[in-house]
């Protein structure tokens, strides 16, 4: 196993050469990847918003944003600026403390989850051992924020939206976790880096999607439900609940919900690509390719090309999934609340349990292909 490019090592080395202590160098290093990931998450949201506008326009045979920048590419910036300068209103009889804390509790866990998304072997904030489990735990905090904002708005539509959001997110978390568990069982690790590495032995043939097709579909459905995307956007169903828990929000607080929704979408797409589509792996094995042109894998040039290819591959796979999610949003009708809960509890939960059982038995029967 090669160590790849280790930016942290070179950074701390460089700072130490300037005469600072090792601890201080480490302290200086810590905020850098966080800032980078935060910025990339926000840029990812801007791109997704633009894509959403353009693709929805195409689905409805419109042109979409046109004048802000070429092809309306600056439209999301304009949206963001508008939200930034809008008046921040707290309704007179709302609970102002909970009203303010709610959106923060929705956004913070989603951003924290970016901790575990790998863009390359060492290109992630922290390779925590509990990796993917951390994401599941963090995403379970979100419904509290939704309930909080729904309750504090002092509006029955908001309260209903908040309750729906909590019910939906509890129901779909279980099949989601079971689908992830099947993957974890195959790769013998919770760490996202290990999960990707285990998939990159023979190019795209070793991706988890071939071994876990059912798990892939379950995970994708549950991820859409967790992001409250159509066909599962019941918490904010416009025709029934005005805008659900967001009804009373304006300005930057509303923007926090908006941001959290899109960051969550991009994050889910990234995690699908990490868990099922080989993460940063190129469809053809890089090792094999570099041996073909006669260069060692440890060659700096090969390393740099492989790392940038890895980032491009992760983002490409994620955005293909985002495209799929947007297309689904603008072409499918919304399910009813009873259909939603039926689908979660009576269909996805049993199927994911069976999937887990089958994976376990296949792992015992064919330890070579299903990770012994």
């Amino acid at each position, binding site marked *: 196993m090669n160590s790849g490019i280790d930016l942290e090592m070179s950074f701390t080395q460089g700072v130490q050469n300037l005469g600072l202590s090792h601890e201080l160098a480490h302290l200086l290093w810590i905020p850098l990847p966080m800032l980078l990931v935060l910025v990339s998450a926000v840029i990812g949201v801007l791109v997704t918003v633009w894509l959403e506008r353009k693709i929805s326009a195409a689905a409805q045979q419109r042109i979409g944003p046109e004048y802000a920048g070429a092809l309306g590419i600056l439209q999301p910036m304009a949206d963001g600026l508008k939200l930034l300068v809008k008046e921040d209103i707290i309704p007179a009889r709302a609970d102002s403390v909970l009203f303010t804390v709610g959106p923060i509790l929705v956004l913070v866990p989603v951003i924290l989850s970016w901790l575990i998304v790998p863009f390359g072997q060492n290109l992630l904030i922290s390779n925590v051992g509990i990796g993917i489990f*951390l994401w599941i735990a963090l995403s*379970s*905090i979100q*419904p509290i924020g939704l309930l909080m904002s729904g309750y504090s708005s002092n509006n029955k539509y908001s309260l209903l939206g908040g309750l729906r959001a*909590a019910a939906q997110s*509890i129901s779909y978390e279980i099949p989601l976790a079971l689908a992830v568990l099947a993957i974890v069982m195959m790769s013998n690790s919770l760490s996202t880096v290990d999960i990707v590495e285990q998939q990159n032995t023979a190019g795209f043939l070793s991706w988890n999607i071939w071994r876990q097709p059912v798990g892939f579909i379950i995970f994708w459905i549950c991820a859409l439900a967790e992001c409250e995307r159509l066909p599962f956007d019941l918490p904010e169903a416009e025709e029934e609940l005005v805008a659900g828990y967001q009804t009373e929000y304006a300005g930057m607080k509303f923007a926090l919900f908006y941001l959290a929704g899109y960051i969550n979408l991009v994050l889910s797409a990234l995690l699908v690509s990490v868990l099922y589509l080989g993460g940063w792996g190129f469809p053809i094995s890089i090792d094999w390719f570099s041996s073909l042109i006669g260069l060692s894998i440890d060659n700096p040039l090969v390393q740099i090309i492989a790392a940038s290819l890895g980032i491009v591959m992760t983002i490409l796979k994620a955005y293909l999934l985002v495209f799929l999610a947007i297309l689904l949003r603008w072409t499918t009708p919304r399910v009813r609340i009873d259909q939603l809960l039926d689908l979660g509890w009576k269909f996805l939960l049993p199927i994911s349990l069976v999937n887990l059982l089958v994976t376990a038995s296949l792992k015992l029967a064919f330890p070579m292909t299903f990770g012994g």
Partner: protein
Amino acid sequence: MNIAYSTELICFLILSAVVVSGSLAVVLLENIVYSAFLLGGVFMAVAGLYLLLNASFVAAAQILVYVGAVNVLILFAIMLVNNKEKLKPIEGLRTRKFISGGVCGGLLILLLRVNITTKWNLPGPTSIGEEATERIGEHLFTDYLLPFELASILLLMAMIGAIVLARREVSIPTGDINDLKNKKSLSDKKIPLLSENSLK
């Protein structure tokens, strides 16, 4: 005293302050919704304490189970039945408060005594960090198998009980639906899961 140690100390002090003041507020606040939200905060601070002890898996499990499931369900229940009704004054509240305060104080003294008289083995065993997840799994499926299975049976019983309670069948006389005089009595016979109070 290096940077890592002082960071740990500061984090510990903040987290313990949050846990103590948060749990006091959970008990003492009048508004039950605030209590429930603060309970979530206390659970998260406890998870933070686990993180300080290098038990990341336990911390994540704490958040997933207590914050993500238990606390959300508590909130759910409160919001479904919260009708902002003034509670009736209870007779003999003063003596009740006195008795429960006495019981809690006794418990506190007992725990303090145990804390002081026990010879703590300091410093404790070194943490095994990331390996802990595997170790927990091993223990759960070997020497702690019986308690583990018993807990799952308990949960199953609770689940079946909840289903039985929620799906209790109420027979509604069918012939009377168009009878205006009986409308009042019909609405009284609503299924108990969503009573009139909760719909207000």
